[in-house]
């Protein structure tokens, strides 16, 4: 055994970002991950606004297999389509459960019960099954348990918008779909733990996750401050409670930025040397952390006068050599050329078979390395229903006649029966509308793909 999940089969009946991404990461670890979609219910990472970009902006003949987000998340998986509203679809799903180790789903509890594929039902089919359910607010009878939810709006509800925002400004969001990823990794943790327990004791179990709960846990210190001291926290932008100066400063070039964080007087003296103003270290306005916090605005101006004339990478090296924590704001383009990301192999190149007409594309790998198990992206994402035949005929033994009927009745399909590609916007138009910062027409040459 060279990979942690060699020999583990995962039935991934989940949509959007959170658990589908868990599925991709499980595949990197050697699991056989089967993505299940309804013929009329293609994943939203294939359609609409969540899909990301198309290769060279072209929808191509099979647009549903080509979006970037779909391809990142579903790497290395197998694809099966099953209409769960048809009894045959549900029956085949249950047969697959009986030969799987893990089932992941994010349907509403009512739907799962109605289809007879909730945990108590599936446990009867596969007693040592590990099942993971992810919903917005978790199962149970709480006031929000039946509420619709999605990461963008949950970011407010679970407390993150309250603590995020420019200094003294209104609440804001940061990043994209933040809480989805907390669920991604929580599921990974829970699956590892539950599988180990299963191998130890022979017993499976049900993992019940609510994204809301994960988001709230990540603001624990603010909640403790409220419970113990009646304090509601504050938005402090890029500054720090106990370090100063800390911030994000303009660097040389358009929309280029450098961050730095000074934690003690020694780092402050080093920064003064770099600023070429050693006398500042003795200046009463900035002499200690308290003074620097009080006069932070003034200090920010002095720092910007320096940083705005120097390249962001050079700034990082200058400061890090003096043991001042510092790093440039890297864009989605920058990471492709950064020597550290390159050396770590964080972005992995996936080469598609010629018939996919997708070429070679680099994708985010994973943020952990195992010394003895070479984790890697195991292959490209599958096309819609690519493994219908293998899984249904070879694995489950569906005969030719029955298979043909499944195709005829659209219980399975290789083309989605609904959904549309996200509209094409030419990069120059996107630039003009301020939707992107820059566009390189020669990006393929630059990347060597």
């Amino acid at each position, binding site marked *: 055994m060279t990979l942690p999940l060699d020999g583990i089969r995962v039935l991934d009946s989940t949509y959007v970002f959170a658990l589908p991404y868990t599925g991709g990461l499980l595949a990197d670890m050697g699991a056989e991950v089967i993505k299940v979609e309804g013929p009329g219910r293609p994943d939203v990472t294939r359609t609409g606004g969540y899909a990301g970009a198309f290769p060279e902006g072209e929808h191509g003949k099979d647009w549903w297999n080509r979006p970037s987000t779909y391809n990142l998340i579903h790497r290395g998986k197998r694809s099966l389509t099953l209409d769960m509203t048809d009894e045959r679809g549900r029956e085949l799903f249950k047969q697959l459960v009986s030969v799987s180790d893990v089932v992941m789903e994010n349907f509403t509890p009512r739907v799962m019960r109605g289809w007879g594929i909730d945990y108590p039902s599936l446990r009867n089919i596969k007693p040592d099954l590990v099942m993971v359910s992810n919903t917005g607010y978790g199962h149970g009878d709480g006031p929000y348990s039946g509420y*619709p939810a999605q990461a963008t709006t949950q970011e407010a509800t679970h407390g993150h918008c309250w603590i995020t925002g420019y200094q003294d400004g209104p609440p804001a969001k940061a990043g994209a779909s933040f809480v989805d990823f907390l669920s991604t990794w929580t599921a990974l943790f829970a699956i590892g733990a539950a599988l180990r327990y299963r191998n130890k004791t022979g017993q499976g179990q049900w993992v019940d996750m609510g994204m809301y709960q994960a988001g709230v846990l990540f603001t624990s210190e603010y909640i403790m401050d409220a419970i113990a001291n009646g304090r509601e926290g504050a938005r402090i932008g890029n500054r720090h409670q106990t370090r100063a100066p800390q911030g994000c400063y303009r660097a040389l070039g358009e929309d280029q930025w*450098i961050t730095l*964080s000074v934690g003690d007087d020694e780092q402050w003296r080093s920064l003064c040397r770099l600023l070429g103003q050693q006398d500042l270290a003795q200046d009463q306005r900035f002499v200690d952390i308290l003074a620097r916090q009080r006069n932070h605005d003034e200090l920010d101006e002095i720092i910007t006068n320096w940083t705005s004339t120097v390249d962001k990478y050079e700034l990082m090296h200058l400061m890090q050599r003096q043991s001042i924590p510092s790093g440039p704001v890297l864009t989605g383009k920058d990471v492709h050329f950064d020597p550290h990301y390159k050396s770590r192999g964080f972005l992995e190149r996936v080469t598609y078979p010629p018939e996919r007409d997708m070429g070679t594309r680099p994708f985010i790998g994973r943020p952990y390395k195992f010394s003895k198990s070479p984790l890697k992206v195991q292959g490209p994402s599958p096309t819609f229903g690519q493994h219908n035949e293998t899984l249904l005929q070879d694995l489950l033994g569906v005969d030719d006649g029955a298979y043909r009927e499944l195709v005829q009745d659209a219980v399975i399909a290789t083309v989605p029966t609904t959904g549309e590609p996200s509209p094409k916007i030419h990069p120059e138009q996107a630039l003009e509308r301020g939707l992107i910062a820059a566009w390189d027409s020669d990006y393929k040459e630059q990347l060597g793909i």
Partner: protein
Amino acid sequence: MSVGVFEGLKVLDLSEDIAGSFCARLLADYGADVLKLEPPGGAASRKMDPFFGDDPHPEKSLFNLVMNLNKKGATLNLEAATGRSLLKQLAQHVDVIIEAYRPGHLSQLGVGYQELSEINPELVMTSITPFGQDGPYSQYLGEEIVNYAMGMIMSISGVQGQEPLKHGGFQAQYEGGLNAAAATAMALFMQFNTGEGQHVDVSTTEVVASTMLATQTLYPFSGGTPVRRRPSGSMFGHPMPCADGWIIVQTGGGASWDDISEFFESPEMLEPRFSDQVQRAEHGEELDEIVLNNIRNRSKWELFPKAAQARMLFGLVQTPSELAECAQLESRDFYREIEHPVIGKIKVPAVLFNLSLTPYGQCAPAPTLGQHNQEIYVDGLGYSQQDLNRLRQLNVI
């Protein structure tokens, strides 16, 4: 200690920061026997805001408290040769070591993965650092803001014309801890099956970068570089002020545009200038005016259940004290009460997820400094009471 999915698993936690401590806490939450080893002066986390009653006492850091729930605690000075020999003795009997020192630090002291795995081949050692164990920046110093900047997330956060914005709090550190726990769980599954341990290397910057799906792929798919949003335009998908706070609304989900216009009691939203995504973006400011005008006198608490009824994707900006009193979280048994020897009884956020067969058990407070020295060194390793005193004198524990 709670009995759970990791019952019987033995873990040493050498970390002093948020990420490492959180990782080890998650293992402890689900039943592992976790021993926190701190320098005799206490881990750095004991100096972290906020403090109970605003008193910066080493046992009153609320951050330290929540990061170290359900652990035991002993002191150990790794800078002393005797301290390192104690660590080696302890390492023989554990499944996992969690550490967050600068890459190479423990090896220089002779207690890195290489040395410890020779004593204990089944050991899983998890290292959490800003940039990972290798690569040109591995010796560089990280801070929350640096992880965020280099993890791409700041490049799309905040608004154009102003500086990129970091997330509030210490999200990268929590995320790093959660990833480390997940990777550790997988390495432990493999250890159980093969009898082999290994070294797990987690980079917090890469953790942050892992959330940038659309941001990373745009360039190799179409040559574009994503950017922060424009300062004006539709506030859909962003906090909007109402009578008693802020709400957030996203189109999509089970609600049609008709439902949304009815919710905002604004028939003018059905006019052609708002008929689709492109039109609405074009007339964003007019749209905002209509919506903001409607919610100016409405309460977020009135709007939230109504939006759910309309199957809208809706959120309200909750404050920390609102979260502390949330009925939904109570229904999930999310908060637990602990009895801390210095702070007393206090409620803490605890449960990340539910497990049907091995649920989250009792919740114990973070250990006080050196609380379990006697149990670990005398009862466990067999040192005498006199030895213990001597070790204390020598600043080893």
